């Protein structure tokens, strides 16, 4: 026999101790009466002794039975033996409710969202369950959340949780949901013995059900579990068209205003590239989409900005479009650093969640770049006497209007204060740096800084690199001695990555690189993957290589793979904070003529401008995944409604963020540390319909069966489509047996009356020693 509320049963049964305790304590309660005629009382008692004892026991029994009956009635027992009462064991039903971004799609005609439809069906199913049945609830919005698991007999609570469900902005995680349901159903023998069903309520669109990726066989070892799924729309039926903003990419991750006020910068607009995508059956037809791109200071109302507008005219069959628009950057403000949120928004369509896309862009009056080298006094020697630091300074600030501020740092005076406030640092004389200096630089890099290192021009043996590699955790082995290249070697124009730090000068690079020759080089042959070659030489060696924070972390962990927790999906995620660039040739004329060539200035400028943005890390994330937070932040507060999110020690949120929006990052003291934007998962929002047969075959994979189409999409033993008219028709098992609560309550009432009568006419008498 099982009980709906076993805790109530045990609590009630424990209360049987009360009459027993009273029974035992009664003898200690009253002061004794001294009695002279005791012999006659004892004689009378002896005559009545047997009768009194029987009466006492009957009374105690009645009281205990009364409490036991009450406890059992409150526990709501169910008779599972088929022969005793009609009905059998209760059923277990797990409802996998799709609350992913795709569930926000609005139905044509009814105006009802897909989630509302799923919830209505779920409520019908739960309402049809009997008192002995149990229901579990798992929400698919990624990562899947087991809201009610293990299944609970408190069906009212399950209904309430279903009603409270709302669409997230994350992709559906059906695989995770099935694994959670499978684990709960196989958790105990009792769970295995109950007839169980898993009901999947989803549209199974391209975004919510990726049939190309097989499901894990989560229900493979549970042959008794039946899967009921809502029927996907037929491929031929009319579907919705959903236009998405999948990306918004500024030209540079950091906008430099040069300290000029916003109103005086008319005409100096930032170029932004916006990627749009169409999904759904309506892609075959043409259409027009209006796009608005606005830039606003973080925290300011975006509605206050007019922004730029553009129209996209879709050709029939066209699924993706890229639009370039100009946006006015906001002012950096008095502190010299701010963030701008670029927002791309399109007209309202069937699915609203993916109509907006946001991205954080840093805004600076000027970049502060430190050059760590000894100061030089005097100016004798002419151009050939210029040191690497001199060349770098010239390249960083070729004109007075260049929005880069150069800060000279003496190697002996290198400390945390000197590095504070810098976006980038050059180390052209690394042999002057001690181990503690490298440790400070490593901390600077981890905090989102760019470090450019080049070999010292005058050293013959290069032992300095050990400290750098150790402190920065670099996957490099730098040679001890420089290599002299007879006659020099030119730069390989084809080595520039189209999407790398130098991508903006990629078009001009062949003409710029042609006159450059490199005569001496340190360690080019010893540099190995996973560093990225930014610029190569014609002999196959590298002139400039970069290692990002994520790459260093991967090396430190000693693991392979790619992407890390956030991955690089949609080009949104940065590779982590911090960037180290190593120039294999010192920028002096004795090593290379690069400083005197036209390539020098654009190379240094691009390295700094793009590299500083890349090093600062990404401030945008995807809903359904943990988000990388700005350096030193501990808490993300949503702009608008929503719960705060704690940032873990690794600089990543402890849990996945399921809602799109803007989040303000604060540190332990509550000081603002930056802004993070989270966007809806566009891939999960694809509304293209899928063939029910293919979906059925895909679902069958969860049962460990060979993928194969369901014959005509009809029901079989283990997998069936949900009947819209009768959602509970296909559930395993029958409705649970009749509750015994009422008979037990009647028995308790009878016992209560019997107790009253017996207490009135029976008495208590016993002799003590």
């Amino acid at each position, binding site marked *: 026999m099982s009980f709906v509320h076993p805790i109530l049963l045990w609590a009630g049964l424990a209360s049987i101790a009360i009459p027993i305790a009273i029974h035992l304590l009664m003898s200690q309660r*009253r002061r*004794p009466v001294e*009695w002279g*005629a*005791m012999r006659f009382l*004892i004689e009378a008692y002896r005559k009545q002794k047997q009768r009194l004892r029987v009466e006492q026991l009957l009374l105690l029994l009645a009281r205990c039975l009364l409490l036991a009956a009450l406890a059992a009635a409150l526990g709501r027992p169910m008779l599972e033996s088929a022969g005793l009462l009609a009905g059998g064991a209760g059923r277990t039903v797990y409802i996998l409710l799709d609350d992913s971004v795709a569930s926000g799609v609005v139905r044509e005609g009814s105006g009802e969202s897909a989630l509302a439809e799923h919830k209505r069906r779920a409520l019908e199913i739960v309402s049809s369950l009997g008192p002995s049945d149990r229901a579990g609830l798992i929400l698919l919005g990624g990562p899947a959340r087991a809201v009610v698991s293990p299944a609970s007999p408190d069906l009212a609570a399950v209904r309430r949780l279903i009603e409270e469900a709302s669409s997230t902005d994350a992709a559906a995680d059906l695989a995770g949901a099935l694994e959670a349901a499978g684990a709960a159903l196989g958790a105990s023998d009792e769970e295995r013995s109950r007839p169980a069903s898993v009901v999947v309520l989803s549209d199974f669109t391209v975004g919510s059900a990726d049939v190309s990726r097989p499901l894990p066989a989560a229900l493979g070892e549970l042959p008794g579990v039946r899967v009921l799924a809502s029927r996907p729309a037929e491929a031929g039926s009319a579907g919705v068209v959903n236009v998405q903003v999948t990306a918004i990419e500024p030209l540079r991750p950091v906008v430099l205003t040069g300290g000029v006020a916003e109103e005086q910068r008319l005409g100096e607009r930032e170029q932004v590239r916006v990627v749009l995508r169409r999904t759904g059956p309506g892609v075959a037809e043409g259409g027009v989409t209006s796009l608005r791109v606005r830039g606003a200071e973080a925290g300011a109302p975006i509605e206050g900005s007019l922004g730029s507008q553009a129209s996209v005219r879709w050709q029939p069959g066209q699924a993706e479009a890229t639009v370039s628009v100009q946006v006015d950057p906001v002012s950096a403000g008095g502190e010299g650093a701010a963030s701008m949120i670029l927002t791309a928004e399109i007209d309202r369509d069937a699915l609203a969640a993916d109509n907006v896309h946001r991205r954080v862009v840093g805004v600076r009056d000027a970049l502060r770049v430190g050059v760590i080298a000894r100061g030089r006094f005097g100016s004798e020697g002419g151009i050939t006497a210029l040191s690497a630091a001199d060349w770098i300074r010239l390249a960083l600030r070729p004109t007075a209007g260049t929005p880069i501020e150069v800060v000279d740092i003496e190697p002996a005076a290198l400390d945390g204060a000197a590095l504070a406030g810098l976006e980038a640092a050059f180390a052209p004389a690394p042999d002057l740096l001690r181990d503690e200096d490298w440790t400070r630089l490593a901390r600077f890099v981890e905090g989102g800084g760019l470090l450019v290192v080049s070999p010292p021009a005058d050293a013959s043996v290069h032992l300095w690199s050990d400290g750098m590699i150790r402190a920065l955790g670099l996957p490099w082995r730098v040679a001890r001695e420089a290599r002299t290249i007879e006659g020099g070697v030119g730069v390989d124009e084809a080595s520039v990555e189209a999407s790398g730090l130098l991508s903006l000068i990629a078009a001009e690079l062949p003409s710029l690189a042609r006159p450059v020759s490199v005569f001496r080089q340190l360690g080019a042959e010893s540099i190995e993957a996973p560093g990225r070659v930014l610029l190569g030489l014609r002999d196959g060696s590298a002139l400039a290589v970069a290692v990002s924070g994520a790459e260093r972390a991967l090396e430190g962990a000693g693991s392979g793979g790619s992407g890390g927790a956030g991955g690089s999906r949609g080009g949104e995620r940065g590779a982590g904070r911090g960037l180290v660039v190593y120039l294999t040739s010192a920028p002096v004329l004795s090593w290379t003529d690069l400083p005197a060539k036209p390539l020098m200035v654009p190379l240094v400028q691009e390295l700094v401008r793009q590299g500083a943005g890349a090093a600062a890390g990404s401030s945008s994330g995807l809903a359904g995944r943990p988000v990388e937070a700005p350096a030193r932040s501990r808490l993300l507060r949503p702009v608008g409604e929503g719960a705060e999110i704690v940032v873990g020690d690794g600089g990543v949120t402890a849990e996945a963020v399921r809602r799109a929006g803007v989040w303000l990052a604060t540190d332990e003291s509550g000081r603002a540390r930056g802004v993070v934007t989270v966007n809806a998962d566009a891939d999960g929002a694809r509304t293209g319909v899928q063939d029910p047969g293919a979906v059925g075959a895909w679902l069958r994979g969860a049962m460990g069966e060979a993928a194969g189409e369901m014959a005509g999409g009809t029901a079989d033993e283990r997998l069936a489509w949900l009947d819209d008219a009768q959602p509970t028709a296909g559930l395993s098992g029958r409705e649970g047996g009749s509750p015994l609560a009422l008979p037990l309550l009647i028995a308790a009432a009878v016992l209560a009356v019997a107790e009253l009568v017996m207490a009135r006419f029976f008495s208590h008498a*016993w002799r003590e020693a």
Partner: protein
Amino acid sequence: MAEVPTTSAAGHPAVDATLYLHPQTLARLGTLELRAKMIVEGVMSGMHRSPYKGFSVEFAQHRPYVKGDDIRHLDWKVYGRSDKLYLKQYEQETSLDLVLLVDCSGSMRYGSRSFEDASGAGRKSGPSGLANWTKYDHATATAAAFAYMALRQGDRVGLGIYADSLVDAADRSSAQGQWRRIISILAHHPVGRPSDIGHVIDQTLGKLTNRCLIAIISDFFEDPARLRTALARIKHRQHDVILCQVVDRREQTFDFSESAPFEGLEGEGRLRVDPRALRKAYLEVFGAHLERVEKTARSFGFDYQLASTHDWLGPPLAGFVARRNAVLKRSKSG
């Protein structure tokens, strides 16, 4: 108990001596001596009898002297006139020997009426220190009254208080100091032991050489068979007996309502009982015992008086007086 009139027909406050015989009145009186005087005066004035009537020593007859007679009893005047030896025979002594046996066993310590309630405001406990007017208080008041009355009539009075044996005793005497002695012995407190009337009677009879009136004042909470044996021995020795059985009204009614543990006063242990459940059975057992005691007494021709601690002492005293007179008559005729 009869109601005591409080006003006369003329409307003046009635001075009814029976008022003194009520337990509440007795409880007010500090000493047993005073109690006894009040009791006796009250009884006698209530009965309109002189307590001193019939007190005399009369000449009976002469008989010829035979060898062995005590020459002290020779009537020398007859010898002078007739020169014959005659013995002068007097009527036998008209006074009697009264032996009082008062039970001081544990069960006599019970009393349901509080001393304070019985005595009115003021006294919260009796001489024994108990807060209730106990059966022992009642018994000692009765015994003192008997003794006082007998001594005033010239009787010799002896006293024994007993439980399982004699605890204290005073030999028979009619001397002036006897009254004080009796009072001091009655001031004993009850003991926690049960009574053993058989053993006590054996002890008492050993001291008696002539016929006596034995007044036993007790609750007789003991085996009736043993009582019968004891009374049989007294009868055999040709003594006369008054049995005055003192009980408490609550022992007769057992009118408890709430469940409580009852603890015996003679070490019987403790009994947790719902009184309502056992009342009927108890009253049957208790009534049967009283009946058996009375039947036993009557079967030997002895007087039996049932006295309740809540009732006045008139009936036992009247019974005592009547019995004394009857005994005296029998002595004269015998």
